[in-house]
């Protein structure tokens, strides 16, 4: 190999490695999310990160603009579609335009029926804050749920504290909940008591922002 060529290769290797290292650090430092709510049909998260080619077509096909694209703060998920349910939940469109637009199979085209979506599940994370559990008849989450009486039901029992009032508790049924997040958006509290979390057992710190 000529001297000039050798030098060229060394510069190239150095440049590429610097770039790769910078990119890696950038992405690692930013991956601060506990979990991300994906559009309907999203395959399992690790698989999703491998398959999604970050084209944004799901987001562009969503008439409600419910799908956002991850930016630097999404870390390793930079450029992937995210739903921020509290701001703008998925409306479970019957024809699932987002799934149809996805070229890569990251949103599984097998999903044909919007109510079969399982992108997460709602959880009453702040039980002590929920107005219904305090004895009021709020039930806004229940009323707005597109799968009313299936994904959320109201269970009533005696208010043990007063001994003569009733508690009407919203209860989520994981087997029917789509994870759309409409309840999370609707919750009247400043910090929602009901939040969509991953299908696996969720932690307390799910709500961000």
């Amino acid at each position, binding site marked *: 190999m000529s001297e000039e060529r050798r030098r060229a290769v060394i510069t190239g290797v150095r440049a590429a490695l610097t770039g790769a290292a910078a990119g*890696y650090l950038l992405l690692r430092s930013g991956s601060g999310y506990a979990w991300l709510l994906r559009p309907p049909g999203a395959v399992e998260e690790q698989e999703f990160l491998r398959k999604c*080619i970050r*084209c944004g077509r799901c987001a562009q096909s969503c008439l409600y603009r419910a799908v956002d694209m991850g930016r630097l703060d999404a870390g*390793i998920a930079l450029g992937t579609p995210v739903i921020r349910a509290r701001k703008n939940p998925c409306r479970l469109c019957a024809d699932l335009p987002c799934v149809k637009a996805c070229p*890569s199979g990251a949103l599984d085209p097998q999903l044909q029926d919007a109510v079969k979506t399982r992108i997460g599940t709602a959880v009453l994370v702040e039980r002590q804050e929920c107005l219904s559990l305090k004895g009021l008849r709020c039930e806004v989450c229940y009323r707005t749920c597109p799968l009313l009486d299936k994904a959320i039901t109201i269970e009533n029992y005696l208010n043990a504290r007063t001994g003569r009032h009733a508690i009407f508790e919203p209860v989520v049924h994981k087997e029917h909940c789509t994870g759309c997040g409409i309840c999370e958006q609707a919750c009247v509290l400043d910090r929602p008591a009901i939040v969509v979390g991953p299908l696996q057992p969720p932690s307390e710190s799910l709500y961000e922002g």
Partner: protein
Amino acid sequence: MKVNHWTLARRVVQLTVIGLLLTPCLGWGLFQGNLQSASLLGLKLSDPLAALQVLLLTGTVALPLLGGALLVLGGYGLLGGKTFCGWVCPLGLVTDVFEYLPSTRQLRIWPLRGKMIALLVVLLLSLTLKIPAFETISPIGIVSRALSFGPASDLLLVAAILLVEVLLVRRFWCRSLCPLGGFYSLAGRVSPLRIGYRAEACTHCDRCRRSCFVFEVLDAPLVEGTSHVVSGECTRCGACLDACPTGALNMRFQHPLK
């Protein structure tokens, strides 16, 4: 005033691409996606390098992605490979325009080969990080995203590239670092669309080389006397055709391997 026909045509095409990338927010349905994958008037197009990364990661490629990728690969294979860089890529346009700053001409350059190494690094990185590495950090994707979803923090990466290009190393991203450019240079190597050269008309004024940001590719005809530009690094941008005062250069289809 002399009109640079090729550059003019190229700017029109580049700006059309920018326009298309802007349309999804208008809800016209004419164009959807970005340069990683798009639907243009119903025609499904995808980036072959993105498909390659997904193939490496998952062992399969979904049919819509594969179809679109083969179509695009075939198209650029026919039309010069790095024609993507010269005519379509929005980052190519931005860095190209910054080169109008005269000071950039004095900067040092890095060898073209760096792109192939970057391509290898990106493929290896995909396997270790378990994400399509280039699609994730692609500044081309970032520019497209800024156009169709509004600017955001990730534009910092693009700003960093521009900063290096105007202060330190001339066109370092497109010349030496872009894995996608490296990928398309492979297609450019076998493409039938070439810059042809007529030695008898050439006065060796060197204007073509000065107009070209990958001027090394003109060495083959000018120094070694080949009848056309051989290297896949040529973006078929036509700047040399605009610059040549004697018409010694032309754009033509020919048997790719002759």
